[in-house]
């Protein structure tokens, strides 16, 4: 091997030129993984640390509100009085199903079934929005029962953790709707499947994070605190139907 360095003809030129947003199907990379896909995986690794910090903080302060209250300071309400596992299980189920529809949308696009892709994409966005609606209901309900960011450490950590997750879902829904818009305008074809795949990676990650949050925040039991600290005269839970009626009443 005398010629340690040789040149290859960059025929066509475009192969190695950087920044080609739409050249996923033509460019080859050293790892064989698409640029944007690799970048998304790296972002998700970073996001693990992001949620890791939030979840660790939640776990450090878990039970702190009750502790402070027992020492004669602070205020309720406390998680044992507020957490509604059946309700949140439904919205968790909705979010998990959105991962299924996401997969179906991508599969359809890869088979060049544009119509199917759009339908499942719309379904994913709707399921995501439904989850956000459920979170909005939950937040308002907790707030009505006296829990705000400032009430106690449960309020601060709960709203921050689930709020940041909700923000991730909201960004995902906007992303999905943007892709749907692009698709309806004819800009999301079989060859653009990578655009959908990258969004899908993000979407599945947000789902997985919710499984962890749902387990640690909702399913693991809290110390029972009776009714002390609940908002004076506050009903234990505004029923969903009542909430829906109020919401509809706002519009009609």
């Amino acid at each position, binding site marked *: 091997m005398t*010629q340690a360095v040789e040149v*290859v*003809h960059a025929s066509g030129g475009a192969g190695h030129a950087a920044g080609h947003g739409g050249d996923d199907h033509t460019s080859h990379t050293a790892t064989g993984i698409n640029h944007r896909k690799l970048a998304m995986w790296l972002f998700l690794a970073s996001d693990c*640390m992001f949620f890791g910090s939030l979840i660790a*903080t939640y776990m450090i302060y878990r039970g702190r509100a009750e502790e402070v209250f027992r020492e004669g300071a602070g205020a309720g309400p406390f998680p044992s009085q507020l957490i509604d596992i059946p309700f949140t299980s439904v919205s968790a189920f909705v979010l998990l199903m959105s991962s299924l529809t996401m997969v179906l949308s991508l599969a359809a696009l890869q088979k060049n079934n544009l119509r199917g892709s759009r339908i499942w994409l719309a379904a994913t966005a709707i399921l995501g929005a439904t989850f956000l609606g459920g979170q909005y209901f939950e937040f308002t309900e907790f707030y009505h029962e006296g829990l705000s960011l400032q009430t106690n450490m449960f309020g601060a950590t709960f709203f921050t953790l689930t709020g940041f997750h909700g923000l991730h879902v909201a960004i995902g829904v906007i992303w999905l709707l943007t892709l749907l818009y692009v698709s309806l305008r004819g800009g999301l074809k079989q060859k653009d499947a990578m655009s959908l795949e990258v969004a899908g990676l993000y979407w599945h990650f947000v789902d997985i994070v919710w499984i962890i949050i749902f387990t640690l925040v909702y399913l693991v039991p809290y110390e029972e605190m009776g009714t002390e600290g609940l908002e004076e005269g506050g009903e234990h839970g505004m029923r969903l139907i009542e909430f829906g009626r109020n919401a509809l009443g706002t519009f009609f």
Partner: protein
Amino acid sequence: MASIAQPHVQSHQATVQPVVHKQRSGLWDWLTTIDHKKIGILYGVTAILFLMIGGLEAMLIRTQLVAADNTLIEANTYNALFTMHGTTMIFLGVMPLSVAFWNYIMVLQIGARDVAFPRLNAFSYWLFLFGGIILNMSWFFGVNEVPNQGWYGYAPLTEEAWSPTRAVDFWILSLQILGIASMLGAFNFIVTILNMRAPGMSLMRMPMFTWTTLITSILLIMAFPAITIALVFLMMDRWVGTGFYAPAAGGDPLLWQHLFWVFGHPEVYILILPAFGVVSEIVPTFSRKPLFGYSVMVYATAAIAFLGFGVWAHHMFTTGLGPTANSVFAATTMTIAIPTGVKIFNWLGTMTFGQIKFTTPMLFAVGMISQFTIGGISGVMHAVVPLDVHHNDSYFVIAHFHYVLFGGSLFGLIAGIYYWYPKVTGRVMNESFGKWNFWIMFTGFNLTFFPMHFLGLQGMPRRYYSYGEGSGWEFWNVVVSFGAFLLGFSMLMLLFNIGQSLRTGKRVGANPWDAPTLEWATTSPPPVYNFREIPQVAHRDPLWAEKYGTDHEDEDSEVGITIAGQEVGTADVPDDKDKEALRLQQAEEEDAGHGIHMPNPSYYPLIAALGMFLLAVGMLIDFPTLVALGPVDFSIVAVLGLVTLIGGIFGWSFEPASD
């Protein structure tokens, strides 16, 4: 097969016809550039500017401390000065100077035409610039609005009760924006390195500087989320009245320290590893030998990065974590000395039996190795808990981290400036002036920071704006201040040499140092497309293998050592080549590049970054306020910024990268 060493002599063989875009010249070109080389220059120039500002702050600090009971600077201003000095040097000086080299050099080293996401790269730069502006614009709001809580920002001092002005908010918003800039840049560099290596460049054929770029970028994306969250909690405490760090509400101020140092300790490796990479390039080049123990060097770098996440609590030995935690973190901290020591011995091993040429870059590199070793040793001393209790918050600590951050990081990066200057400008920096520059900086540095060990052991606490007559600290403080002024002078010499050599530096060709890595295969400065044809790599030191044969893969071999031909600074382009001929040559190169398709310039990165800047500024100015949140106000400007940011991102998403 043509040699890649003279890409400009290639005849017109391009199969594809003109697509290189008409470049607009001047300001607009710089504002919309997505060329990694221009962005690298922007990073470098901005970083040096901020280094000068941070240096000026240091000079003021040393002027205040030159005499006991000095009244030149009052306490609050002094607090602002040391806070701004630390924050500026770390986030606006050393980090972006490293990023400048990642941008300009690393991309060339792997034989690529640009980074994976050129517009994202521009966005990172603009965010960095605006983040720096936000931090420093606090000076225009009066000294009480300047961050003054220390660069570590310990809670609960940063809570609204103790820091009621917007000082901390300037700091928070600036760091959040700089954090986003750093992380986006890191994603970009990792993808670039993994995906865009030239054919044949396996991971274990990558230059060490590229390796340190990769590993540092991984550190960046894993460490910055922790401080982002820590700052989010602080924002919420200050703006909406939560109690994450407030004991009264059940919060814990130590949470800040944990989150901050989970970021903060990897951060010190983010600062030093790029300098290790630079030195690992320079030492082999001027020892005329391949890097000794290359693969061990790679593993040691990775080990440092990995261990760096398990040592954060050694910053918290005096907070009362208990003997178990203290022992564990002391042990992990001492462990890091092993891979670090491996690196130092590898550099020494490279120099052993080498034909060492003490050029200016080599002087700085060897200076870095020696000074960093001193800082490393005092670092191991801090790992000993009983000793650390006494060092803590004293000038001994200041001495330690300036030996690693200035003697380590900055010496390494300045070595890089001297080393790669000819690649960027086509001219070599003045060598004899450079040697004076090194020796004055070396002397000034040691006069400044070595006596701080004595001061610390004598009990002089850090962060105090004054000390009393008869404390016994007067003499060494005079020495330190004198050294600091000498150090400041040497930085001005560096600045002068950079500026002067642009006009009078000796013009050189592609590879003036006869270095082995790919960035030296293209012209100096490289054409916009870097390599007319993408090189094929078959060896770890491709240019040496091409020139001297490949048998110096065996590290005992003499090949590649004895043949080292050229005197430093001599050109393989004739020196007397007049400007017209050079212009013609460049025009010819432009022609030759017409087959290469480069992405369009874009102004969306600037617009999106401007949106984020306005969003932050809108929170910091109180006119006209929409919602007041604690010390900050959401004004109409913030809304405008948010709209601009979102508009910029959507415009960017729908803009074709090239036509």
